[in-house]
């Protein structure tokens, strides 16, 4: 995990602080500990502290938090580590039934305690058996330029439940970042939620007195509701597709095993046995992944071929080695070549897996339907392809996703179209989904048309639809969706033009409140004057890998600013919709 120090912002600092906080929290509990984890946590915690480190701090065994009684406990303490949600509280109460009196039980809330949860424990009669602690891990580094709060249901909580406590956590996360990297001098933002967060951040910054010179020059807060089209569109970068099709969580993905088994492994499998799934860790420490991840999927195959050829020629070269010196050189390169070969094999298998789905008729037809909507084609009527998907009984998430794209691209649907779609869903999938339709409406994803067609205007003003894109050698960020530049990223591109000062007027073209303020720096601290500025972009409500790829593209190409991305969570269209239904 040392690669975290290699980015322009040394995120290793943040990770180390989180690690210290975790250890401090655990050390407050004396003696050996059995830990019971909320199942959303091992991923994030694994990024902060390795298992061996936890073992050194007295953790003897670990179990997932599920219903039912606990297995036999051998240590003097049992520590539940959990996010504040009610179903976890129910499971904990279940676990505490028949608790042995000689074991001490602790509950660590991450990141903060919750009155509702503690009341629930009170109602279930177990609150007196537990000692309550907090582990305030608000945000953690996922990669050298990426931070996430891993709040996977943030979109629903913010835009359906209006649960603004997340905004408080976002402000606290920014406070943590400012505590390590200095108060950020300039703040921009778009959207009502950004406005609220900006106000909280300003208040908290006033209390930061330590004189750290600011490492980050700008903060941009983006409320997800200012760009709903982008997370709904199907991502076409290598990393984006892995997430869309198989789910990438805290840099880990689980894949079907067949393509990763060697011939001998395949022969050894008995007929009644199913081989276990293949788990892969994909982040910047894998060099090849670093090169492939942000490419458009069509450029990945040719890249892999080129690498294969490169490796083959390196091996060939060795055969022509004459002197001892040349042999020595080759032998020293050998481990690197072996590693590269292994990585090549792995990524080739992953690409084959993705290709099977990407080349399928269902995928291509769905993609074409989406792209037509994003290009503004026929938004005013019931789309026959969508209707047929309902008729065929295609997965509900797929159908709803397409309807939402149509709605968001047209700033809503015509009343007759909306009614036809709603009836279609109820008739095809069942009455209970009508509640899902209500939620999609509350979230602004599937609504009746409002008067102004903002997305159509922004499409033209910001040139979001780009033709003749070169997927192998892209010249513009629209390559991440093969022809659509993500609105959020284009906005940032225009906000920070090359070789010119920031242009905040662009923010006013997008509906919703705008934030633009300068924070007072602590006494004696000056803003930095380096050649390239750093901008922290915080997506409130979720960010996609495609947007991250687009921002990396801008960072590498442009001479304006380097982007570091932070978000409440990393998401994709299927996740977004499925959590609402």
């Amino acid at each position, binding site marked *: 995990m040392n690669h975290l120090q290699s980015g322009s912002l040394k995120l290793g600092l943040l990770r180390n602080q989180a690690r210290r906080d975790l250890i401090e929290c655990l050390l407050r509990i004396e003696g050996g500990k059995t830990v019971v984890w909320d199942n959303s946590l091992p991923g994030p915690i694994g990024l902060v502290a390795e298992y061996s480190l936890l073992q050194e701090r007295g953790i003897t065994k670990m179990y997932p938090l599920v219903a039912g009684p606990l297995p036999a406990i051998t240590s003097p303490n049992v520590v539940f580590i959990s996010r504040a949600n009610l179903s976890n509280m129910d499971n904990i109460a279940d676990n505490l039934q028949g608790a042995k009196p000689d074991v001490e039980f602790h509950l660590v809330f991450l990141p903060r305690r919750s009155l509702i949860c503690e009341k629930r424990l009170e109602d279930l009669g177990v609150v007196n058996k537990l000692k309550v602690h907090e582990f305030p891990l608000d945000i953690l580094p996922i990669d050298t330029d990426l931070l996430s709060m891993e709040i996977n249901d943030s979109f629903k909580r913010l835009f359906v439940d209006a649960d603004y406590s997340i905004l408080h956590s976002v*402000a606290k996360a920014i406070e943590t970042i400012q505590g390590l990297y200095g108060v950020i001098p300039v703040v921009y933002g778009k959207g009502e939620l950004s406005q609220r967060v900006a106000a909280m951040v300003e208040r908290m910054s006033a209390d930061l007195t330590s004189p750290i010179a600011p490492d980050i020059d700008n903060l941009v807060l983006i409320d997800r509701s200012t760009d709903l089209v982008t997370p709904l569109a199907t991502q076409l970068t290598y990393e984006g597709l892995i997430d869309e099709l198989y789910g990438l969580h805290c840099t880990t993905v689980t894949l079907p095993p067949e393509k990763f088994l060697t011939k001998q492994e395949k022969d050894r499998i008995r007929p009644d046995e199913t081989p276990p799934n293949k788990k892969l860790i994909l982040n910047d420490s894998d060099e090849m992944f670093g090169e492939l991840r942000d490419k458009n999927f069509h450029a990945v195959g040719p890249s892999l071929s080129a690498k294969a050829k490169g490796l083959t020629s390196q091996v060939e070269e060795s055969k022509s080695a004459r002197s001892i010196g040349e042999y020595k050189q080759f032998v020293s390169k050998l481990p690197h070549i072996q590693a590269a070969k292994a990585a090549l094999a792995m990524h080739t298998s992953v690409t084959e897996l993705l290709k099977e789905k990407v080349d399928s008729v269902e995928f291509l037809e769905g993609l074409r339907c989406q792209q037509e909507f994003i290009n503004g084609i026929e938004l005013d009527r019931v789309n026959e392809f969508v209707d047929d998907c309902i008729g065929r009984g295609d997965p509900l998430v797929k159908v709803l996703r397409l309807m939402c794209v149509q709605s968001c691209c047209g700033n809503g649907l015509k009343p007759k179209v909306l009614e036809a779609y709603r009836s279609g869903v109820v008739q095809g999938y069942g*009455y209970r989904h009508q509640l899902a339709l209500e939620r999609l409406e509350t979230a602004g994803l599937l609504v009746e048309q409002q008067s102004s067609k903002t997305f159509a205007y922004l499409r033209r003003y910001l040139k979001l639809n780009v033709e003749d894109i070169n997927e192998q050698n892209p010249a513009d960020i629209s390559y991440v969706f093969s022809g659509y530049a993500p609105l959020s990223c284009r906005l940032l591109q225009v906000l920070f033009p090359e070789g010119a000062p920031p242009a905040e007027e662009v923010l006013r073209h997008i509906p919703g409140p705008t934030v633009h303020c300068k924070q007072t720096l602590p006494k004696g601290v000056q803003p930095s004057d380096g050649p390239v500025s750093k901008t922290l972009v915080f997506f409130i409500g979720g960010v996609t890998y495609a947007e991250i790829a687009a921002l990396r593209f801008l960072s590498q190409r442009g001479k304006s600013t380097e982007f570091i991305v932070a978000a409440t969570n990393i998401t994709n269209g299927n996740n977004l919709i499925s959590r609402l239904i």
Partner: protein
Amino acid sequence: GVPLTHHQMQSLTIKVVIDRLIQRNLWPIAARMCDHLCIPEEEGASRVKKHWACWKVAQQDSIHISDEMLAAKIKQKLQDTPGISYADIARKAIECKRPELAYQLLNYETRASQQIRLLIQLQRYNAALEKAVANGDSYTLYDVIADLRDYMPALNFQSLITSNKKALKYYLKYLKYWNRDMLFQMHGQNDDFISQGLCRVEDSFFDITVENKITSLKDAKMDFMRGKGQGEFLQSVTEEQIKLYRCQQSLEDELRSPKSFVGLSIHQTIVKLVCDGQDKKADNVRKEFKVPERKYWFMMTAGLSSKRDWDGLEKFSRSKKSPIGYVPFVEACLKYDQKHEAEKYIHKVPPEERVKPYLMAGDLEKACEQAYVNKNVRELIRVLERCGTANRNVSERIHGYITNLQ
């Protein structure tokens, strides 16, 4: 001045000396002493100034200027000093029976929890609620709402919470976990009939018998009728669902298969009927719920193929010109690995559209030939992308075709 020997000062300690100066109301000297001794502002100057402020508050002769101005004057004197607790000064004002002054002073307090606690004590419930909402920390907000509910008479609490839209949302969420009946009542009191109706709909899914479900939905329908806007759509959809439950119940009775239809959607009901060989009943459901023809053809295809009735499927496909084309038939056959059957339907697909079904069937050679006959380079490329190392002869052929066409 106060004469003091060095020895005395040492035995008393600096803190005590400053305290004695403060108690004699000698604030300027005390402040200058703190400054001179470089005592940090939070410990030294702020104590001095706070004491002065509390004294000022207790002064009766300052009644002739308004409380607002007095508070502003105090703020002016104190504003450069960090670590001032306006909450403490406000507490003093409360002690001196000057609640308005206390309220004015609280406006300057930055720590929300302190501010809110005292606002509740001052019975400024509205302000307390506003501040709690603005603070954003839901832990505090639920705490405050619970406190307000305890302190205020019920009716006043109701009207307060309903007047603050954001607080209301939190309260309703709180009630959802705690007290669904109360939640229901709240919706009623807010004339939010749609939400009431939706509550009933949610409950109906937990009802066990169909009769109970129907009763819940009938009540929900009444609620939706009173709501405006989306009420209309919800009303008609609920009406249809009541009709569907009744229809499904009678199907279960007639076919003597309990618990097999209730809960399915209209489409799923029809597909199941076709799959069970009940074509006539399926057609009745179609008529009753005015299912459009396109959708019905999809359902027939799904139903017939799932019971592997290939002859039946073929007969159906010939009954009239298919409104959905023949590709869905190909898909249905391929779903059950009936490649031979699928091919029959591919022949019925017009040539310009045949490449897609050939690709679905994995027939790359035929797809390639068809694309060539169609003179469609794009389709040829599509087929090419599907060619792996096993189909090298096909991909070579395609390269040749593409060159011919260009």
